[in-house]
């Protein structure tokens, strides 16, 4: 019944996870279509980041299935590395390789993992750096860049792998306020270009702007799923209302 077009880019089926006694993911079912931008919001500790990280298998799950274009992502092994490389990820703390230049950070994986030629990769890396606006920082090491510049370089590093989907795990939470916008703009541009994305964020106006769909999580569960218009103007659940009100109160 599924023809290729209807297979979701990412699909989670009955995903469960515990940290000791804590039930951090409860029967998560979620699918992201090709080209869709899904934003996950929710209070701290609601399981948003864990969900995001579990898709990459950076966190093991207890049970359930995670599929990339209909293909199950295994828990370990060479196949996992292969599928991981097709899912881009941007972290809260940038995680650039401290000992290499910005340019090397971007070329490393395409050369080592995708076995592309250094020359070709280098040219593309410079184009990507241009696109995220840090071309002039290419020969510096990460510590010489501002947080916003580092995060934009990290986005370029992910894009260099030509991922089918991008995951953003609170990409602006570690940034000074004046740098948040420059990073969000890069992400918004990607959204416009049709990149499939799953974004965990606390930036509500940004969520409203880029999301095709908003997912609200609380206590390890998906509590509500809706279009941004409906979710932000008229949330269905009490928990989502409380959460949004607490934000306005600030």
């Amino acid at each position, binding site marked *: 019944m599924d023809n290729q077009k209807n297979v979701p880019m990412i699909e989670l089926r009955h995903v469960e996870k515990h940290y000791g006694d804590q039930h951090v993911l409860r029967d998560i079912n979620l699918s992201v279509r090709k080209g869709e931008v899904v934003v996950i919001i929710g209070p701290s500790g609601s399981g948003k980041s864990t969900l995001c990280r579990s898709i990459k298998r950076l966190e093991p799950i207890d049970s359930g299935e995670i599929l990339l274009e209909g293909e199950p992502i295994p828990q370990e092994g060479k196949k996992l590395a292969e599928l*991981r490389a*097709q899912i881009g990820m941007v*972290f809260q703390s940038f*995680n650039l*390789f*401290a*000992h290499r230049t910005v340019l090397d950070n971007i070329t*490393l994986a395409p050369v080592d993992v995708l076995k592309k030629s250094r020359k070709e990769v280098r040219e593309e890396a410079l184009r990507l750096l241009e696109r995220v606006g840090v071309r002039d920082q290419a020969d510096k090491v990460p510590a010489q860049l501002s947080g916003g510049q580092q995060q934009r370089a990290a986005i370029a590093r992910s894009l260099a792998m030509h991922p089918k989907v991008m995951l953003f795990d609170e990409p602006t939470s570690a940034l000074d306020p004046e740098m948040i916008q420059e990073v969000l703009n890069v992400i918004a541009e990607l959204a416009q270009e049709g990149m499939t994305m799953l974004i965990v964020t606390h930036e509500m106006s940004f969520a409203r702007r880029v999301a095709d769909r908003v997912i609200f999580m609380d206590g390890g569960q998906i509590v509500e799923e809706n279009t941004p218009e409906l979710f932000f103007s008229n949330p269905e659940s009490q928990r989502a209302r409380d959460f949004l009100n607490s934000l306005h109160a600030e």
Partner: protein
Amino acid sequence: MGLTDLLSKYGSQYFQALLTTWRLTAVSFAGAFLIGILITVARVSPIRPLRIFGDIYVQIFRNIPGAALLILLVYALPYLQIVLPYDVCVTTATVLIPSAFCSEHLMSGMNTISPGQIEAARALGLTFLQMIRRIIIPQALRSSVLPMTNLLVATMLTTSLASQVPMRPRDLTGIVSYINTHDTGGVMAFVISAALYCLTALVIGKIGSLVDRKVRILR
């Protein structure tokens, strides 16, 4: 014998001994470095038996006195029908012991790498060995230049074990024993060797801090 007498009579032999000590040090350190890296990779590998092997290796060679190891190699191995030449025995001891310390330094160098970088490497699809080669070992090495410099000096001092077996040519400690059994060099014979050890250590230390300043990772 005074300093001038000693130097005029044994100067060239001291020079030979200095070169021997340098050679032993270089060979031992190179071997220790290589094995140290391999053992460290084993200690962080996803394969449990390898990790256990690496930990046991380090515990053994970090805790055995050099002289004891040398005695085992020279006097115990022949009972197993293994008779090694003296220089091989010495070099084996001066490789194995520093290799354990080398691994310890690398492990502490690794602790300077933020876990996020490892996650990023995994997220990009790097395999364990690619991660080791491209991210972990380079950073661990660059963060452990100063302890490695100390290890190089310690390795040099360990090569004085060579004086405990009839190895030719003699090293800096061996030459003192030779002079004092054939002649009356007294304390001055020791002082010359000590000065040469010190001088070498100073040079090593200086180069080490220069290298450290050059390769240290900005964080």
